[in-house]
């Protein structure tokens, strides 16, 4: 596969792995957080961990849109879908996320709610056009990558004068969440030596918005592509910065990311959305100015206003460690539910649902390492 295989080349990978092994300082550890679920997935699927020295640890971050959506918002979506007038359009990932009282969108659908799985906002728009008698609501989630398409769909609905289309907006902002993690605002501070920065988010917002990470928190960031060689090269770039005593925002993903990002996409977002005062993140709690809502000019397409939604915060399962895992404070295997009560078939928390979630990635791709690791740790103690 042209333009894909090159980024998965085993020979090049061996070369980068050897360089990393040669350059790491054996007298210290390197703890890097990959913010994005896309990176978590790539690291697990291609076995990148096996190619890193033992003193380089990857900590999985909160960049999985399905994982950070709090239970209260899923409850809202289920309530919306239970309205007989409503057709709720959602990405398939969200269907199995556990909501309050053992419910989920999948169960609501089996009980008769009209919930349809779509691949894009435009699919939802098409359904609204084809079925004028239905109130079609698009359940919008995601970081800055998926926000511009939602903005365009809303603008298109306005141009078309579609009265039966609205968006239940849960779009969230990456740099704010990154700051929350670094500041340890949510409780324990997570000790990190650097960050593997988002790929697709950065194509939209550019590299500039991460500058505070270097200036305020003195940690390097390397914006990285999603292919396994991208990730390995970014790890090498982080190690070089640390070993050289530098701390900068560097861009490994130069084939897609610029310093200023996509101005057109930013303009569309600014036109359609306003900042929320505050928004709840699973794992991070209430984070001020961390999410978007529809601006007043597009209020007619805002499902929250049309259906008078007032989110009631709902607690996660108390035994579920998704929160600490999303902050990078715990590993999936630190959770007592992992692999026993909580599996991809019977997820108790959101991190086990999405393929980008840390728990699902570790369960599906990486758990064969656990026994050998446990044995090594036991032997060492």
């Amino acid at each position: 596969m042209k333009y894909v295989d090159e980024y998965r080349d085993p020979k090049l990978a061996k070369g980068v792995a050897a360089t990393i092994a040669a350059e790491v300082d054996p007298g210290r550890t390197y703890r890097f957080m990959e913010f994005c679920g896309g990176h978590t997935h790539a690291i697990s699927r291609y076995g990148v961990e096996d190619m890193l020295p033992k003193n380089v640890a990857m900590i999985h971050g909160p960049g999985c849109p399905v994982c950070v959506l709090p239970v209260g918002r899923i409850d809202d979506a289920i309530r919306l879908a239970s309205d007989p007038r409503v057709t709720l359009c959602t990405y398939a990932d969200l269907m199995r996320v556990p909501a309050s009282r053992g419910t989920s969108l999948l169960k609501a659908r089996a009980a008769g709610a009209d919930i349809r799985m779509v691949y894009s906002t435009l699919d939802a728009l098409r359904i609204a056009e084809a079925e004028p008698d239905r109130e079609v609501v698009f359940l919008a989630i995601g970081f800055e990558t998926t926000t511009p398409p939602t903005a365009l769909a809303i603008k298109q609905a306005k141009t078309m004068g579609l009265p039966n289309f609205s968006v239940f907006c849960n779009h969230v902002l990456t740099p704010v969440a990154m700051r929350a993690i670094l500041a340890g605002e949510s409780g324990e501070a997570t000790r990190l030596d650097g960050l593997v920065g988002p790929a697709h988010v950065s194509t939209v917002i550019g590299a500039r918005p991460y500058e505070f990470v270097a200036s305020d928190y003195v940690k390097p960031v390397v914006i990285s592509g999603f292919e396994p060689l991208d990730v390995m090269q970014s790890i090498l770039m982080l190690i070089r910065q640390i070993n050289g005593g530098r701390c900068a925002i560097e861009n490994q993903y130069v084939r897609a990311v610029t310093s200023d990002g996509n101005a057109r996409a930013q303009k569309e977002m600014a036109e359609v959305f306003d900042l929320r005062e505050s928004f709840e993140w699973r794992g991070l709690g209430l984070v001020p100015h961390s999410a978007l809502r529809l601006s007043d000019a597009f209020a007619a397409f805002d499902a929250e206003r049309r259906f008078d939604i007032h989110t009631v915060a709902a607690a996660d399962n108390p035994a579920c460690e998704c929160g600490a895992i999303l902050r990078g404070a715990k590993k999936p295997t630190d959770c007592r539910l992992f692999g026993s009560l909580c599996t991809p078939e019977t997820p108790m928390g959101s991190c086990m649902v999405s393929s980008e979630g840390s728990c699902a990635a570790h369960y599906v791709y990486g758990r064969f390492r656990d026994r050998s690791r446990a044995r090594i740790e036991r032997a060492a103690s």
Partner: protein
Amino acid sequence: MNLVMKPVRRKLDMRNGRVDLSHGSGGRAMAQLVSDIFHEAFDNDWLRRNDDQASLDAPAGRLVMTTDGYVVSPLFFPGGDIGSLSVHGTINDIAMAGATPKYLSASFIIEEGFALAELQRIAQSMGEASRAAGVPIVTGDTKVVERGKADGVFISTAGVGVLPDGLSLSSDKARPGDAVLVSGSMGDHGVAIMSRRENLEFGVEILSDSAALHGLTASMIAVAGGALRVMRDPTRGGLAAALNEIAHQSNVGFAIAEDMIPVKPQVAAACEFLGLDPLYVANEGKLMAICAPESAETLLGVMRAHPLGRDAALIGHVVEDERNFVEMTTHFGGGRIVDWLSGEQLPRIC
């Protein structure tokens, strides 16, 4: 004066006609549908008797029986259709036991309004597949349901085969050290269906691999039947599901190498585009065989000499593992599990 009035028997309107509820009512309309479409397409001595069952000579050896349902959408796809698929799939279920398929049955649940022309096309495709395989469809049934209660046509089949004495293949027979072989490239069928559903074009048309495998299995058994432990056609859930099932049933693990697993470049590209992993995508004309390690090369030779096994490959080995993991060395150079399928399914792939 015409006292004995003989009704004119009108032909079915194959060009514009549609199935209506009378075609399932048990009356003349149904008899005509069955005779003009199904008997015409499947023609054989058993059907010509017009009984509700077929009487068959009991062959020597042990009987093997299977049943299968087909709900694939779309009904026609590159490389096949629901008709040929139902024949191939049923034959393959019998063949994976090491048995020789002998007879098939077919039952049709048809939605009111379904075009007679499409029904005829499906029946003829089944007839051709069954004749090519040498396995007749000896009995059947037709039901018509109201519009909206089915999606075009669903087919339910049964198959009967006979197992020679001394041969016993089963999913609990894999032993550490055994070799794992596949007969060709993985993921073709599922990707052919998905690309048709999503209207995706990849420059080269991706065809379903739908095929009857009993010829291939017969030649494998003839040469090294005693060395075979398990055979499986990796349909829904793909190679990953087949390996995981066997790992559990035999209480072993697998060590496989991604580099050794044949995947066509266009299938790999389509999977990349659709967010699928070819190891989880359905096949309808491929088999996986687990055999004693010393016979692996011989079996590979036999498979490669058969038109349906030209790209056969050794992909790994059975290992001891009480956790029953399927571990894979990735092409990239790391390790990972190939777990059971979880997350989105691809509904109605067969």
